[in-house]
Structure formats: C-alpha cells, structure tokens
C-alpha cells in the first residue's frame, strides 16, 4: 500500500479518536459535577451513595466501570487526610473491591496535570500532591483533594506523625462504619490494625480488632502533636497562597542545586 494512502486512512481515525477522548473527558467532568451536586443537595443515601447498604446500589458504585480517578478521590474523601498511594490502594481494594496497580498513579497524576493546562475545561475537584512546608515541593506518593484547605495539603516537619495518627484513627472509624458494606470488611480491619500496630502500648492479637481502643489511642496521641503541626502548616500555606494554583496543586519545580551531575545520568541501562 502506498504510504500516502495509508496516511489518508490513519489520520482521520486518529482525529476521531482524539475527538472521542476529548468528549469522554468532558463527560467525566460533567458527571463529576452532577455527582458533587447530588452530594450537596440530595437525600442522605444519594449524598453518599457508597455508604448505602443496598447491595444493588453498592455494586453500581463499586463496579468495575468507575474510573480510577473517582475511586481515588472518593477514597481520599473517606480518609479525610492526605494519604500515601499504598494506603489508597489498600483502602480501595477493601472498601470498593477494586485493585489499583501501583504504576497507575504515575499516569493518573500525569493526566491530571495535563488536564489542568490553561484552556482545558475545569474540573470541580482535582487530585493533587501534598507539598513540603519549606520549599513547597511535591510529595508524589502523598495525594490530596484540591477542595481541602491549602494547609491540609502541606507536610510540615511534624506532619508525618500527624498524618499517620489521623489516618489510623480514621481507618478505625471506617472499619467500624463499613463493617457490613465494605467489599472486604475483614481486610479493612486488617489495614486499620496494620496502622495501629505502631501506636504506643498496642500489641496485636491475631483475629482481635480493638478498633475503638486503637482509635482512642491515636486521637489521644494526636492531641499532643496536632496544634504545633497546624501552626507550621498554616504559616507555610500563607506563603504558598501568593503562588499560582498550578504550584499550589502540583508543587514548585525542583531547582538545580550544587555542581552538575547530569552528565552520566543517561548511562545506566544504555
């Protein structure tokens, strides 16, 4: 087949594909907007459909058709605090019965950043990175929702501990709350236990899940650390507010520090 003929057949298909992808993205945005509206104005069951106990309703929301992006956003919404991708993966599997490959997050966040480009349609909520408090650099495995206050998306020196304690307390709550509706309630309890095992004074016993007790310990520990941490995060957020939304969501670019080192960066695997 002559090359020009081949090109004539491939190009329209490519245009059509791009057009369809654009439409798909717009539909997803519209759907997210409508869902957000339902959450704000609907009945309690509609407001948080995944909390419905009805299995039929549940399967609609946890079914394999839901985009990964939505699952991640909903997981973060449930967890209420920045969460590491491994924590989100575990939670998604236990709560919704959906496996997210570790490698999926890279492309997910790349898509999110591309969708944020000027001229593209706005999404009601963005997936974004938590940022370091000093230089506002991205912590790429620690994800947040853009509708959270800016200071909650910042990791100050003591925030590592605060994040761990907050997540532990919340996972205990969620394991109790979704005891009958999680895709794998036992797994949810195990995830909570995995977090709780490093709380002071906690000794795990196989098959026993003292969710209420672990939650109390985590919250008790949190009381000591949270106030100082919040002050540091707020001070950092104030400095960041002057920056563009792009930087607030995805972090400041990494600037080159020190003597050149890129000369043989490409050598490995060459």
């Amino acid at each position, binding site marked *: 087949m002559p090359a020009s003929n081949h090109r004539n057949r491939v190009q329209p298909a490519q245009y059509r594909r791009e057009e369809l992808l654009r439409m798909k993205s717009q539909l997803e945005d519209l759907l997210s907007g409508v869902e957000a509206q339902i959450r704000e104005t609907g009945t309690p069951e509609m407001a948080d459909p995944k909390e419905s106990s009805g299995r039929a309703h549940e399967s609609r929301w946890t079914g394999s058709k839901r985009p990964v992006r939505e699952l991640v956003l909903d997981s973060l919404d449930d967890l209420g605090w920045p969460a590491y991708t491994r924590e989100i993966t575990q939670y998604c599997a236990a709560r919704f019965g959906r496996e997210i490959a570790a490698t999926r997050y890279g492309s997910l966040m790349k898509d999110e950043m591309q969708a944020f480009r000027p001229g593209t349609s706005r999404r009601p909520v963005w997936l974004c990175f938590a940022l370091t408090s*000093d230089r506002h650099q991205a912590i790429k495995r620690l994800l947040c929702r853009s509708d959270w206050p800016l200071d909650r998306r910042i990791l100050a020196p003591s925030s590592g501990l605060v994040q761990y304690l907050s997540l532990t307390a919340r996972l205990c709550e969620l394991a109790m709350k979704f005891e009958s509706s999680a895709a794998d309630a036992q797994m949810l309890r195990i995830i909570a236990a995995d977090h709780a095992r490093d709380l002071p004074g906690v000794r795990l016993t196989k098959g026993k899940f003292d969710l209420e007790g672990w939650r109390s310990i985590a919250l008790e520990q949190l009381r000591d650390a949270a106030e100082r941490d919040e002050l540091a995060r707020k001070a950092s957020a104030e400095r960041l507010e002057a920056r563009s939304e792009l930087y607030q969501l995805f972090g400041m670019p990494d600037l080159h520090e020190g003597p050149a080192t890129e000369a043989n960066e490409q050598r490995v695997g060459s």
Partner: protein
Amino acid sequence: MSLSSTRGLVRISINPRCEFQAAMVAEGVREPELFRRVTGREYDREYGERASARSRGAKFEENLCMNNAALLRSALARLYGYNPEEMVVRNFADEVPGVKGVRVIRLNRTRQVLRDLAAGNEVPHLLIQPQLSLPIELDRSFVEYVAPDFMVLDGRTNIYRPGEMKSFIIREGRADKADLNLTRRQAAAQILALRSECVPYDLAGRVTSAATFIFATPYGLSPAAPFEDVLEGPIREIGRAIEVLRAARRRLESRRQQDGARLEMLYDEIPVSFQESCLGSCIMAGECKKKMAASGRVLGDEIGDLLGEEISLERAVELLGGAEPENPAEREIAERLSDGASILGSGQPGTGRRVA
C-alpha cells in the same frame, strides 16, 4: 540490573585487578546483555539475587519505613538519644518515586537539606532513600550515584551518618561475615559520597568513617538493635576502586578513539583476573575461567597466588615432574611443590627438590 553505582564499585573493590570488570562498570552494562553479546548465547543460569531474598529484603525495609518509619525511628532513637515521637522523617522514595530519571531530583533535595544544615536551619533527623553522588573524575564529569537506605542525623557531630538496613539475620549479636563484607563496602562508598557532597557546604570535616547498620532478628522481620561500624579498611578499598574505575574509563575512551570498538569486541583484548569470588558474582566468570585455563587461578585463589601470573599450570606440572627450574621464581615453586608432594606421599620428588 546494570553494573553501575555502588554495586559496580563494590565489585571492583573485591577484584581490582580485573580490567574487564572495571570496563563493564565504566560502561554501566547490563550483565546478561553483555554476556549474550560476548558469547552469542543467552545466560541460562541463575542470575542476580534470588527473588525470595529480594522480596524478604523489600519486606524488611517496608516494615521499617511504614507508619512514618515507626520501627526505624524507634530503633535509631535508642542509639542516637532521640525521642522517637519527636524525630522528623523525610522519605525521598515517597517524595520522588521511581527508578529512572529521579536521581537528580532526589540529589537536589538531599543537597538542600545539607545546605539547611550548614546554615543552621532545622533539618530532619532521618532521611530515607536520600541520594548522593560520588565523583569518579575529579571535575565531576563522571559520577556514580550512591543511595544509602537512610541517613540519620548524629547529634554528636551534627552531621548525617549513612545507614543500611538489611534483612540478614543477627545471631548472638553477630552477622554473617560474608553478608557484612559487601554491606560494609557499600556503606564505605556512601561515606565517601557524603564527604564529597558536603564539600560545597563546608561540612566534609564532620563526616566520620562510621556507618550505621540495622539487620533483622532471627524472629520474623523485626529489626535487631542497630550498631555503628568504623569502616577505614573498606573506605580505602573503595577509594582504590574509584582509581581503578577512573583508569579503566580513560583507557576505554582512548581505545575507542582508535576504532570505536564496542566492549564485547574488546573482551579478548582487555585483561581479566579470574578469582574464586568471581563465581557467583560476575556473569563472565565461566568465560574468564576458560580464558585463563592455563593459569593456576582456575584451581583456586591459593594455587593462583602460589604460581602467580608467570608460571602456567603446564609448567607447574613439569616442575613437579622434575624439570629444571629456569629462574629463582620457578626454583621456589619447585621446592614448595616438591615439599607438598612429599607430604602427600606422591613419590614424585623431582630434581627441583632442595635446590640451593
């Protein structure tokens, strides 16, 4: 897995006489690929660390680093006099995940921490997966990337100390010598890299020759008490490996300028040095053993050391059979062979016996 970074330097430090291995490191080759290009066939034996060992190691590290590195903090706090709850942690593997193309970003962030330390700002107590670089050429036109498992701030000297966490088992307070040997060399490269990184911030003088190690207890994957080890010897050996690598790289470049030959084409040209440790660590060991079939090295390091590079196995057999030694070196060998034969009662005294 490519043969570069700390892995390459450690390999050179164990066998600095093998010029081909140094050239392999200089090129950053993937060993199975090089093997195929040299021999024309695939490497059909087990290569690299066993999957089970790798997964145990990964699980051990994951255990120590989860929940804001609770186990790691708690282990190190005892050694460095910190309150584990107050230790600040930065995990660069979480900040900049991935393998390829992330080293420069991690390195920049590590350098920012060092700059903050030099400026007297607050810095984290614990850095997980920081990135350092170790110049091979003094003008930094060629560096090796070195990544300690962690670096802990030592309050006594106010500088970070590199550390390694390994799932090797400690029994009665001791780790296996072979396990320790490689890990100590690895840590030595990290100390040299940290010193080099500290130079621009005037902190190099604070970096001591000690590193911190955390191994596993025999019970599951919980960490044993960490310990510090002073690594003067391994640091010297890694320093020598750097010189060998630099020389190999320059030789390779100058050879390339003649005809641009690829490394596999130079296998017959570049000297190799086969030794026992090559088996099980270098993919080319079998080929080098064949290449050195005439040398005493193929019978082991002790015979190789006894005969040296000058006396072939064939000549040694002749001397053992009574051939006249042609020089003092042969005379000495003949005498020792003869003594050995007498002890073993082989009845082959030979004329080389008791030569004045």
